């Protein structure tokens, strides 16, 4: 990295820090909530991109891993005093009824448990490829959700858990997001990252280069699940409730959408598109409300229009940006400089010809 780039990166981080202070002080709860959700979706999409975009494993099990993390935080950070009010149908299992963990520990535990289940699932399933892997992981994510729904004495079943302390404020969420981004960028540019990409490109050639396919696939799968678990924990703490219905498999499609839109195999693209998709869906809410101009109500504006317009936007993006916004390129300072000096370059190019 050049010295100038380093300075720019530090400035960017400082700007983010100042923005967070201002946001915390002046923005209303709704906008803060949206910004937090964007960051959580960034973690989820990045971890899914590690599995899908960088390692080339078409996995659709992310909602399940997220649920494990969310429940872990939900169960273990719930104050013991409010537990009886939550678990009124069946009391909490005695083994965990009196265990209360600090938020950070519960968050990590959620990540680790998600990674552990990823290992259990991945060991038999990662031999499959493409669509078959997608179906198998999708099935497993549903199994996780259904098991969680039926463990009444541990997860409170379909009632969900309420009144989880909302420890995860903006600082927590953005801090964890930043750590995730840095970790994944370092991982991807390491020799492990190269091996992941090699597996994505050509399994046989990767094997002939001495790359242990199974080990790397499961490693990528587990790291992805770990961060999904962490993000799930933040999500539970932010909303202060967990509900099994939150984690149905369609949730995974949101993340898939983000990574396809941002570019499979691009960290910066994923971050940008996580914000576009999450914030975009919120901003477009006014389409769902009735609208009248000069006293004439426009019949189109009714609940559901938002999704129609969103789908049209998606189609346009898929048609004109085949590889997502960024493809598998990364946004870096050189590229930004290139954007700003495009015009002068063009003139120079013209002269050269």
């Amino acid at each position, binding site marked *: 990295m050049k010295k100038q780039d380093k300075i720019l990166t530090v400035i960017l981080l400082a700007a983010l820090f100042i923005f967070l202070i201002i946001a915390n002080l002046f923005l209303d709860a709704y906008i803060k909530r949206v910004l937090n959700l964007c960051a959580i979706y960034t973690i989820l999409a990045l971890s899914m991109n590690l599995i899908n975009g960088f390692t080339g494993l078409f996995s659709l099990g992310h909602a399940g891993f997220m649920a494990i993390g969310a429940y872990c935080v939900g169960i273990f950070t719930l104050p013991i005093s409010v537990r009886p009010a939550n678990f009124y149908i069946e009391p909490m299992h005695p083994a965990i009824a009196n265990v209360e963990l600090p938020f950070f520990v519960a968050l990590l535990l959620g990540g680790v448990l998600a990674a552990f289940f990823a290992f259990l699932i991945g060991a038999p399933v990662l031999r499959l490829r493409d669509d078959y892997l997608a179906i198998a992981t999708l099935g497993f994510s549903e199994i996780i959700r259904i098991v969680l729904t039926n463990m009444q004495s541990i997860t409170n079943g379909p009632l969900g858990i309420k009144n989880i302390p909302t420890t995860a404020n903006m600082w927590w969420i953005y801090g964890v997001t930043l750590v995730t981004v840095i970790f994944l960028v370092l991982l991807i540019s390491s*020799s492990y990252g*190269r*091996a992941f*990409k*090699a597996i*994505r*490109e*050509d399994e*046989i*050639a*990767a*094997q*002939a*280069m*001495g*790359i*242990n396919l199974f080990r790397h696939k499961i490693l990528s799968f587990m790291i992805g699940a770990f961060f999904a678990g962490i993000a799930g924990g933040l999500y539970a703490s932010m909303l202060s409730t967990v509900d099994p219905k939150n984690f149905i498999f369609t949730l995974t499609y949101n993340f898939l959408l983000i990574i396809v839109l941002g570019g499979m*195999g691009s960290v910066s693209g994923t971050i940008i598109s996580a914000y576009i998709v999450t914030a975009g869906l919120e901003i477009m809410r006014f389409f769902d409300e009735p609208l009248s101009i000069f006293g004439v109500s426009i019949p189109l504006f009714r609940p559901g229009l938002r999704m129609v317009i969103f789908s049209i936007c998606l189609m346009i993006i898929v048609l004109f940006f085949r590889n997502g916004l960024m493809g*598998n390129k990364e946004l870096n300072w050189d590229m930004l400089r290139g954007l700003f000096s495009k015009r002068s370059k063009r003139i120079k190019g013209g002269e050269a010809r």
Partner: protein
Amino acid sequence: MLKIENLTVSYGGIEALKGIDLEVPEGSIVTLIGANGAGKSTTLRTIMGLVKCKSGKITYKGEDITGAPSPSIVAKGITLVPEGRRVFPDLTVLENLKIGAYLRNDHAQIKKDLEWVYELFPRLKERSWQLAGTLSGGEQQMLAVGRALMSRPKIMMMDEPSLGLAPLIVKSIFSIIQEINKNGVTILLIEQNANMALRIADWGYVLETGKIVLAGKGQDLLQNEDVKSAYLGKKKEKKD
């Protein structure tokens, strides 16, 4: 150096190799020629541990490596330039080369080897930031060879390096193979272009439907009537 004894491999019910024996002495160029489906690629894949064999024994420097996992085989110094090049298209040339050195930790030596590969193929140095998928066929073949060299092999196995390349490029690839061999790398070469392969080979084997039907010095095989008629496109003289 590398010795194969009575190797049989089958895909389901089809026997691809029906008990072949071959030997690759250290420092030599050995070539395996044969038509499509003779079992040439299967032989290499079995040595690499990509395909499991049914029976038989593969020994490398006296050590039994039959059925060993491919990472440990690569670590021992055997490498494969796969058929059809199989470079990683969405990675840069440099990244491709670095993956070749994946199992190594000696960073100083890796750097030296990278320089050596760039010396052998100056074209790769010019294009080190280009995506491998955008290279021409010949350049991709150079990259595949360079990538294999980055693992510091003692034996390099090449699966049809001339596949789909212009004759001029084939010539240069073959002269580079000889140069690599002079640097102390033993070479096991698979070719359909029997003429080219036998010319540079010390020893050659002819494979036909899973069996070795002929073996001999490269020059001798070039003169052999059967080889000539089957692979070199020259008509047999009628004996009446």
